[in-house]
């Protein structure tokens, strides 16, 4: 295996080079939070009941136990939105007088070992006067329901409403109304590394270094310093190697606040490693939405109006920093998806219940809305007696830029082209023949399509539209060449598996004419990286990549200026390649290493015309860009058992310019696996008392290698003007399209039975129940 090299006349961008991250990770040299030694271990005592008043907490003699009473002066977590009738609710760091969900931290036990902390925690008795919980969102908004927080009437914490001016008239004039009543059950993002934190006090400076599994190290610093009331400069947050996040590690864990509080109070080191049960019951949940969607079509099967009612169960508290508005409000903004529809009405509500708080999970609401919208399209196709592909042909957006009914601007994309590409590669006519033959033998194959848009790389205006008190968006990159000639990029993004160290190095390498292997990308340390938002929302390669390109262009300009001075040549004659500046058409050149020495140690030679050192900053805050794809699933449904096997999966995708095809394909693969888990397997189940029945990985079922079929990928690369690198984001697309494709395929397979599966996950029990009901009705 030779080191990858750049071919003559080619660029590093666009090449499937191996990842710079990998050598450490395959040799056991990765450094994860739980690898750090600590003087003290912390175990959290969690509520075993969903709702009630705490009447007593009894700890064994001599145990070191922290409760809310000890945390005097510590603020509660208060996420805030300034729009959409949002009502702020506060989450105490440890439960105060009441608990609101099973798993809520009530006390923290401190001991010298993890085992000892667990032993003591087991002996702590928390007495709670239990009352009846609200678990389901529909129950929580029913008349007379109890209130989870007294200040939130009817348990609706956020409410978005829209109705375009001609909606009612268009609705009345429609030829057909098609309806889908859909449910997406609750999930847990389930990163393989559960959450962990490690806080250590440094006596020499009075600072605390807090290492944790986060996607947003700077936001953790801001949040923890705010809640505890001390200067941010006294806190260093490190996100070391992070074992997956998928959104779950964006939000502030109250447990983290306790760890930093302990370190400051007792001037020592404190560690907590969440176990899998804690993660499944209290490590933030996701999805859990009811969506009723009606589409009004004209006589040509053209969608003319869309009416949506979205009910998102957001759990017992709002998450920080995004707030619980993230799911219902994105669902409202993006429900029309990739289809041209001018009239739109929507009521979208976030509902508080006595369940684990919700946080973003890869795809954020779009796996749900794509599932519902794609069910609507398939149902409408059946009602009009046309092919599912034909109805999409008549409705997909194909003129750009396109401004949606919600005012979103869609940049250049290929909704129709990717669908036609998928249809061609999957061999639809041949499949229909095979499906017919299989049916004759009692075997039920089905094919399902999902076309969708994936809004990616959006900057602060997009988040500001939601009225977020903390409005993310931009990213900053500081790029420098040190005196030894090595290149370092310090970035505010915080990758945790996405390979961003490699892809950003590819972008820099092309600008500076060096190899990516010479470039170090530094992230996840608030002492070393510039303030930034982190890695989420398919944003890092677009936004941090754009900031990297801006910084790299400035460094390039500076190198050319230095070279021009040293080589006594005109700047326009200088080219940067092979680690040197060369004068075009001559053999005169000077290495970057030599120029770097000069820039730091021989600055007098520049006679004040060039500033010392080589450090440039780039900041990028783009409007956002839409990736798009068509997903196709072929499934085999066993009607006797209700078991579904996904036989094949195909994707035709357009994510703009692909920086590293190997990494891009890996992102899509992983997203599809999570999407298949969403469609078939993964469900957090509460009983009516608010207890969780799925608290192990034997009950909550992420897919294994057995459930994921071969995945065939095809790319179109549309170079958008909405991203300066021409790259669009693609981190979430797999998760967004796969559930819809799989569920549509199941419904296609079961079409002879007259059932409609509109609930995820489509477990064997649900499929059998639908088939039994259809059988009894027949």
């Amino acid at each position, binding site marked *: 295996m030779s080191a990858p090299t750049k071919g003559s006349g080619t660029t590093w961008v666009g090449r499937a080079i*191996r990842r710079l991250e990998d050598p450490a*990770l395959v040799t056991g040299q990765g450094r994860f939070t739980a690898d750090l030694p600590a003087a003290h271990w912390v175990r959290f005592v969690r509520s075993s009941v969903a709702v009630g008043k705490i009447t007593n907490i009894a700890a064994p003699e001599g145990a070191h136990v922290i409760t809310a009473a000890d945390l005097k002066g510590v603020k509660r977590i208060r996420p805030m939105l300034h729009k959409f009738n949002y009502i702020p609710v506060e989450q105490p760091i440890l439960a105060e007088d009441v608990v609101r969900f099973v798993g809520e931290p009530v006390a923290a036990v401190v001991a010298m070992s993890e085992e000892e902390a667990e032993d003591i925690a087991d002996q702590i008795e928390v007495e709670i006067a239990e009352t009846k919980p609200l678990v389901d969102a529909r129950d929580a908004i029913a008349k007379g329901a109890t209130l989870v927080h007294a200040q939130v009437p009817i348990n609706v914490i956020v409410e978005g409403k829209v109705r375009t001016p001609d909606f009612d008239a268009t609705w009345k004039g429609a030829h057909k109304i098609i309806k889908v009543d859909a449910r997406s059950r609750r999930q847990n993002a389930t990163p393989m590394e559960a959450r962990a934190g490690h806080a250590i006090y440094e006596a020499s400076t009075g600072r605390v270094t807090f290492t944790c599994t986060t996607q947003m190290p700077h936001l953790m610093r801001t949040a923890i310093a705010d809640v505890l009331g001390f200067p941010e400069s006294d806190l260093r947050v490190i996100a070391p190697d992070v074992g997956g996040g998928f959104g779950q590690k964006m939000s502030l864990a109250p447990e983290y606040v306790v760890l930093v509080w302990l370190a400051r109070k007792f001037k020592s080191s404190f560690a907590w490693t969440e176990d899998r049960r804690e993660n499944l019951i209290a490590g933030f949940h996701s999805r859990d939405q009811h969506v009723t969607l009606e589409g009004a079509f004209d006589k040509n099967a053209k969608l003319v109006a869309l009416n949506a009612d979205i009910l998102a169960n957001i759990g017992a508290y709002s998450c920080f920093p995004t707030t619980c508005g993230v799911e219902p409000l994105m669902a409202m903004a993006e429900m029309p998806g990739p289809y041209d529809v001018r009239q739109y009405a929507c009521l979208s509500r976030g509902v508080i219940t006595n369940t684990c708080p919700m946080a973003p999970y890869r795809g954020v609401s779009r796996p749900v809305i794509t599932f519902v919208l794609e069910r609507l399209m398939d149902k409408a196709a059946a009602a009009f007696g046309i092919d599912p592909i034909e109805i999409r042909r008549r409705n997909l957006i194909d003129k750009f830029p396109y401004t949606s009914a919600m005012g979103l601007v869609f940049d250049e994309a290929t909704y129709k082209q990717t669908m036609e590409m998928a249809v061609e590669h999957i061999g639809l006519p041949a499949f229909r023949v095979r499906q017919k033959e299989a049916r004759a033998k009692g075997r039920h194959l089905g094919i399902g399509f999902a076309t969708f848009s994936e809004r990616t790389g959006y900057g602060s205006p997009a988040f500001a539209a939601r009225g977020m008190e903390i409005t993310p968006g931009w990213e900053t990159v500081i790029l420098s060449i040190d005196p030894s000639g090595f290149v370092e990029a310090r970035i505010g993004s915080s990758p945790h598996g996405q390979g961003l160290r490699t892809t950003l190095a590819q972008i820099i390498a092309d600008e500076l004419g060096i190899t990516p292997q010479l470039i170090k990308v530094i992230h996840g340390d608030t002492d070393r990286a510039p303030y930034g938002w982190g890695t989420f929302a398919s944003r890092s390669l677009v936004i941090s990549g754009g900031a990297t390109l801006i910084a790299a262009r400035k460094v390039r300009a500076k190198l050319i200026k230095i070279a021009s001075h040293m080589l006594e040549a005109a700047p326009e004659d200088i080219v940067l390649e092979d680690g040197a500046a060369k004068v075009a058409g001559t053999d005169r050149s000077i290495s970057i290493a030599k120029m770097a020495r000069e820039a730091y140690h021989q600055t007098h030679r520049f006679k004040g015309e060039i500033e010392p050192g080589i450090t440039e900053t780039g900041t990028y805050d783009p409007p956002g860009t839409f990736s798009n794809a068509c997903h196709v699933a072929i499934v085999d449904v066993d009607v006797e058992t209700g078991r579904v096997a996904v036989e094949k999966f195909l994707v035709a995708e357009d994510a703009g310019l692909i920086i590293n095809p190997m990494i891009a394909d890996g992102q899509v693969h992983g997203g599809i696996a999570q999407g298949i888990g969403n469609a078939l397997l993964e469900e957090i189940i509460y009983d009516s008392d608010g207890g969780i029945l799925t608290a192990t990985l034997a009950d909550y079922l992420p897919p294994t290698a*057995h459930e994921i079929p071969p995945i065939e990928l095809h790319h179109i690369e549309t170079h958008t003007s909405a991203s300066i690198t021409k790259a669009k984001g693609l981190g979430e697309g797999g998760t967004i399209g796969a559930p819809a494709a799989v569920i549509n395929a199941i419904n296609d397979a079961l079409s002879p039975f007259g059932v409609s599966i509109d609930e995820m996950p489509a477990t064997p029990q649900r499929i059998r129940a639908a088939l039994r009901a259809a059988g009894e009705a027949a």
Partner: protein
Amino acid sequence: MTEKSNITLNINGRNHAIGVEPRRTLADAIREDCGQTGTHIGCEHGVCGACTVIVDGEPVRSCLMFAVQAAGKKIRTVEGLAKGDELHPMQRAFMEHHGLQCGFCTPGFLMLAVGVLEREPDISNEDLLDVLASNLCRCTGYQNIIKAVRAAAAEMRGAR
């Protein structure tokens, strides 16, 4: 709390004399007492396989074995796969075929695959898939892990 037993764990050819409670899992002993943190803990109930190590030639989930049960046995972890600077074919294949993203489950997959292929070099593709389905990965969607393990298997067979 109970009394500690003095045991010796042989990890990657090196002896570690440690004192552990009988309930100490092998995974915790390897990480906390022997300082070999390349072995990761993902679930502590034997489902995810992130903690897979090789004990006397067999891949085992080190969260389901007590440290005292492994005393005197030959334990191999991810830190012992490479020979000096020369990576094991399985490590190289994972890099070459993008069989890892966040890298948390990777040590477990490497040890699982190496352990099984050393025992059954000619394992069928179907049986190999069964083996790989015993560990969980949340990032890759498994396709590239399967590709990597098949490529390494071919290389390991060629080297026999």
